[in-house]
């Protein structure tokens, strides 16, 4: 069963393609990490799924399906009814994603489309579920009275109270302390499993991916480079980009003060995308074919797909 399916999604600013035919599926209760560097198109992919793209960005192709509903041609009104109920989202900066002048309880109740007075018990219960102590006091407080971690718990409460089938989490822990990060990830993991919510977790942090994701889709320059079960991708990365990315994570066993491993070169700008593999310019395994032709995603071992003519170990 599939909760959310993205097929060949393409996005463009004007005539410049920024996301190029990406595809992925998420099953109920599963956490899929969409990982990549800044500018690789992961956040706009999230906005496209919510159909909340900035005016300058257009969807130029592809199909997004939520359960049995195709979102791409849904009337705006019907899409609005789905938001919060069938598909919800949490944001990078929890404190700025909450209205500073509205109480926590009122903002959670909005996701139920009911006045707080009517659903107070339900909202209170949700605060308990996201691990907020003293919910009777917190429910009437304003965001400035809460810590960043608590605000993110409130955002999760807003997102999950209507029991959506899909949750999009856009860098949900980037703005938080490391210790709080772990708590929030554990909370997301637990609630997704209990409620059978499909989670698309957007992040640039491989540590977060390893912590929480069942499967991972590695994005590079607007395309999916490699996708598969997290454990398999981490153990034997098939795409050269994934391999170099994992190799660049500093480890405690590294010689102190040794140079950090880096990937030479820079991510190409969308306007400079060529005909071939977008990683070819930085890839130690690239040849003439890589520059001329776009590699399609194809299956390799362990249920993985990789878009590379010369995969590592293959």
């Amino acid at each position, binding site marked *: 069963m599939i909760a959310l399916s993205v097929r060949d999604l393409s996005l463009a600013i004007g005539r410049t393609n920024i996301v190029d035919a990406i595809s992925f599926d998420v099953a109920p209760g599963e956490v899929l990490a969409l990982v990549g560097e800044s500018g690789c198109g992961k956040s706009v992919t999230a906005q496209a799924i*919510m159909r*909340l793209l900035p005016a300058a960005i257009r969807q130029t192709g592809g199909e997004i399906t939520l359960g049995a509903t195709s979102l791409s041609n849904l009337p705006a009104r019907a899409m*609005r*009814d*789905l*938001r*919060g*109920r069938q598909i*919800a*989202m949490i*944001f990078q*900066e929890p404190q*700025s*994603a*909450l*209205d*500073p*002048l*509205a109480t926590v309880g009122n903002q959670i109740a*909005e*996701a139920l*489309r009911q006045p707080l007075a009517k659903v107070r018990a339900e909202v209170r219960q949700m605060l308990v579920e996201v691990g907020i102590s003293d919910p009777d006091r917190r429910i009437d407080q*304003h965001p*400035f*009275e809460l810590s960043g971690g608590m605000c993110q718990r409130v*955002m999760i409460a*807003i*997102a999950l109270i*209507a029991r959506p089938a899909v949750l999009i989490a856009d860098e949900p822990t980037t703005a938080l302390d490391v210790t709080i990060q772990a708590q929030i990830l554990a909370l997301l993991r637990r609630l997704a499993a209990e409620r059978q919510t499909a989670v698309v977790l957007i992040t640039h942090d491989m540590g977060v991916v390893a912590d929480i994701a069942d499967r991972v889709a590695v994005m590079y320059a607007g395309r999916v480079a490699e996708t598969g079960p997290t454990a398999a991708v981490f153990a034997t990365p098939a795409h050269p980009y994934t391999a170099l990315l994992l190799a660049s994570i500093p480890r405690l066993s590294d010689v102190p003060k040794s140079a950090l491993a880096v990937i030479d070169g820079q991510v190409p700008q969308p306007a400079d995308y060529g005909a071939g593999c977008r990683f070819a310019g930085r890839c130690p395994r690239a040849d003439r074919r890589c520059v001329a032709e776009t590699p399609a995603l194809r299956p390799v071992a362990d249920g993985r797909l990789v878009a590379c003519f010369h995969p590592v170990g293959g």
Partner: protein
Amino acid sequence: MPELKSRLLQALIAIFGVLTIVFFIMRLSGDPTLLLVPDGATAEQIAALRHVLGFDRPLLVQYGAYLLDLARLDLGQSLVQHAPVAGIVAERIPYTMALAGGALLVALGVGLPAGLAMAVWRGTWLERALAGFVLAGQSLPTFWSGLLMILFFGVYLGWLPTSGSDDLASLVMPSVALGAITMSSFARMTRIAVLDELSRDYVAAGRARGLSYGAVILRHVLRNAAIPVVTIAALEVGNLLAGAVIVETVFAWPGIGQLAIQSIASRDFLVVQTIVLFVSMVYISMNLLADLAYGVIDPRIRRDR
């Protein structure tokens, strides 16, 4: 509330400063004795009258006497009308209040929706049309737009009375003339404040939980945008009273603005000083009111107090 106490003290100091400045500036223009004596009066007669009125005393002594009277809540006698100043000014105040109220109604009623619409429909023909309208309201001088309105609606169409203060109809044109500039300030301020809020994450987050764009604006954006607008609104009420001087003159509206002009011309010092005292008190209480309004709008400030 210690906060309020210190604000009131500041207000008193500000009023005292304004009084002092006006007292000395009025005296720079000379004393009114010459305007009061009949033609052909001798130098001795003028000196005698000047002595009776007390204008031969050193300035500082006059200033001290004025402050003493004020402390006893005695605003003095008008030199020209030979009646208590308090009564002369008091009977004009309701007219100016009605005019300022009408102007504020025009300014808020047109300015806030115009500013909101310019922000929400940014980059459309509607924004450009409204921007032109706002620019016109802001740049047409009141005395000129007032005269134009009198010509068109009063003389040519005959819809509205050209002057006077007989009924509500006669309040319409002066209110529009006076409110135009304030309306433009409100519109520009509202536009900026709303645009600023529309770019915030909570707008996207509100939509992500299923609120329509309109609902996000009504439930979240407006209240956040109100904070800077309230500040401007308070200051603009002061500007309305200043603008009333011109509008009341153009439309022969019997308020304190008109009285101020007449009293300056006849060097009726005490009347001018009393009007300035009144206007500065209104100005300062509006600011105080704005400060209190913040607390109502913004819970962060409420807690700090």
